[in-house]
């Protein structure tokens, strides 16, 4: 596999784009024609070849541009990356996990040489060649979590496990769907999910927590989550809501296919060996509606899902105001034919 990294932006002129191959492998989140919350967990790490589920950490054509965007966001707001003092060991766990996985899964892009605690890390796409001492933070330019997550796509929450609960006590969060790490840091699983409607009453979080507490080493899990975003913007943070909010009102029948994006989160869960913490990467994938409907099954299905979604969910996901435009656009790609089960395109 030869990856070509896109030269693109996730702000200002929004030059982000998906190649035909990236469209084809997009992690479409709906396995049937309707949607409701579920604890939709499945084993992670050896999914269909070529899909974002093939490797533990998917590296795709957006890698370099996403890391550039993260750097901009962090420069403007360093509070997007925080780690409470007791979480440093979990940060080293995460660094080891990502370096191992990437060097094994993408040897042409990443290399890791280890001689005891003396490590040599090479990240070719970002031009990093660095020797450091494992577990010695003075040999890295940032804390271990920040160091490695400046080189890994997606947001990262690092959770401590104690008292039968999970506590969000470290994270790198620059591509979030409207939640604040700075506000949520230190909260337990139920507290940080407090603003989510319906799911508490459905017992979703109780079941999800039980599952997550039992995750074992080398047996990661994943689930998909989704929302809608106007323009391919990674930083849809509450911190900057007053800056990107007006863009939500710029949709017209003429530009909806081009400007409205389906935003999918590939959420994965890894047990960390030394700290017994849980790494919770949240990887964001964006696809414009006009690209999505080039896969006929997805066009039909997304139309039905968005049309029939309960109002509370559309409200929570923040696209109530644009829903009529989206449904009208998608309806043009729904001929009423049945769709095949599962998320992948028909061959």
């Amino acid at each position: 596999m030869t990856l070509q990294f896109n030269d693109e932006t996730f702000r200002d002129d929004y030059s982000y784009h998906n190649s035909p191959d990236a469209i084809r492998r997009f992690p479409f989140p709906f396995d049937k024609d309707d949607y409701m919350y579920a604890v939709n967990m499945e084993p992670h790490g050896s999914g269909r070849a070529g899909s974002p589920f093939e490797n533990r950490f998917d590296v795709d054509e957006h890698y370099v541009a996403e890391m550039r965007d993260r750097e901009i966001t962090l420069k403007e707001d360093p509070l997007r990356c925080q780690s409470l003092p007791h979480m440093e060991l979990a940060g080293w766990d995460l660094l080891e996990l990502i370096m191992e996985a990437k060097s094994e899964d993408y040897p042409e892009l990443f290399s890791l040489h280890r001689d005891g605690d003396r490590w040599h890390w090479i990240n070719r796409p970002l031009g990093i060649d660095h020797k450091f001492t494992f577990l010695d933070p003075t040999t890295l330019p940032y804390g271990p979590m920040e160091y490695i997550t400046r080189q890994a796509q997606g947001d990262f929450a690092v959770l401590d496990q104690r008292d039968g609960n999970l506590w969000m006590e470290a994270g790198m969060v620059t591509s979030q769907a409207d939640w604040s790490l700075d506000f949520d840091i230190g909260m337990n699983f139920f507290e940080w999910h407090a603003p989510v409607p319906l799911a508490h009453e459905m017992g979703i979080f109780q079941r999800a927590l039980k599952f997550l507490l039992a995750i074992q080493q080398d047996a990661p899990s994943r689930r998909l989550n989704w929302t809608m975003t106007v323009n391919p913007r990674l930083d849809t943070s509450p911190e900057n809501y007053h800056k990107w909010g007006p863009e939500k009102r710029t949709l017209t029948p003429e530009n909806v296919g081009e400007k409205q994006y389906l935003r999918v989160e590939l959420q994965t869960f890894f047990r960390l060996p030394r700290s017994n913490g849980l790494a919770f990467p949240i990887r964001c994938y964006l696809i414009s509606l006009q690209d999505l409907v080039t896969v006929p099954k997805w066009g039909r299905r997304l139309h039905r899902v968005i049309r029939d979604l309960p109002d509370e969910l559309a409200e929570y996901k923040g696209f109530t105001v644009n829903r009529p435009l989206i449904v009208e656009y998608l309806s043009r790609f729904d001929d009423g034919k049945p769709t095949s089960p599962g998320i992948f395109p028909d061959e």
Partner: protein
Amino acid sequence: MPATKFTPSIISRPIYGGLTPHGAVPALMLASGPGGEALLDLIAADPAVLPHATVIYIPEGSDLGPRLEAQGPASYVEAASYASILPRFRKLLAEALMNTRLYLAGTEGLIGQATAEALAAGMLLEAIEAEHRGSLARRMQCVHCKGITEDVTTDPFTCSHCGLSLFVRDHYSRRYAAFQGVCVDAETPGEVPPKQEIKA
């Protein structure tokens, strides 16, 4: 004034169980305004809490001070504000013995801030009793500029730091002892809905 009742709608919002006496163990008592009545009720329920109690009272216009002092705690101090007493409160927490109980009574802002201090000092949540008395005002953090606005009684309200109009999101951080305020007219600048009084 009776203990304040809450709607149970907000999952991240702490529930204040009220003050239950734990007998003759070292105690720190911190109350503001009508919260003084909660301390008087506590002492009446079990006078054994008194001989080992350090009482800090912030009157906020209330006249309960002399009655609290007359109960005869181990020590009594009246403070002009929470901010003014904070250095002393921190010292008391740092020097507190292993089995010390913390009794808090007053506004949600006072309870939240004092709880965060106590947790940071290593006290266990189980050792903290709290009772909400008095104003329903909320302590709000602006998610945009991170500034705290005290005593917010309307939704929406104006951030006292950056001036944005914020709505009150049903999300509470123990670390900040504050609810989250989010720009109400982010998508349609200038279209701010009329203010409503916060009732719960």
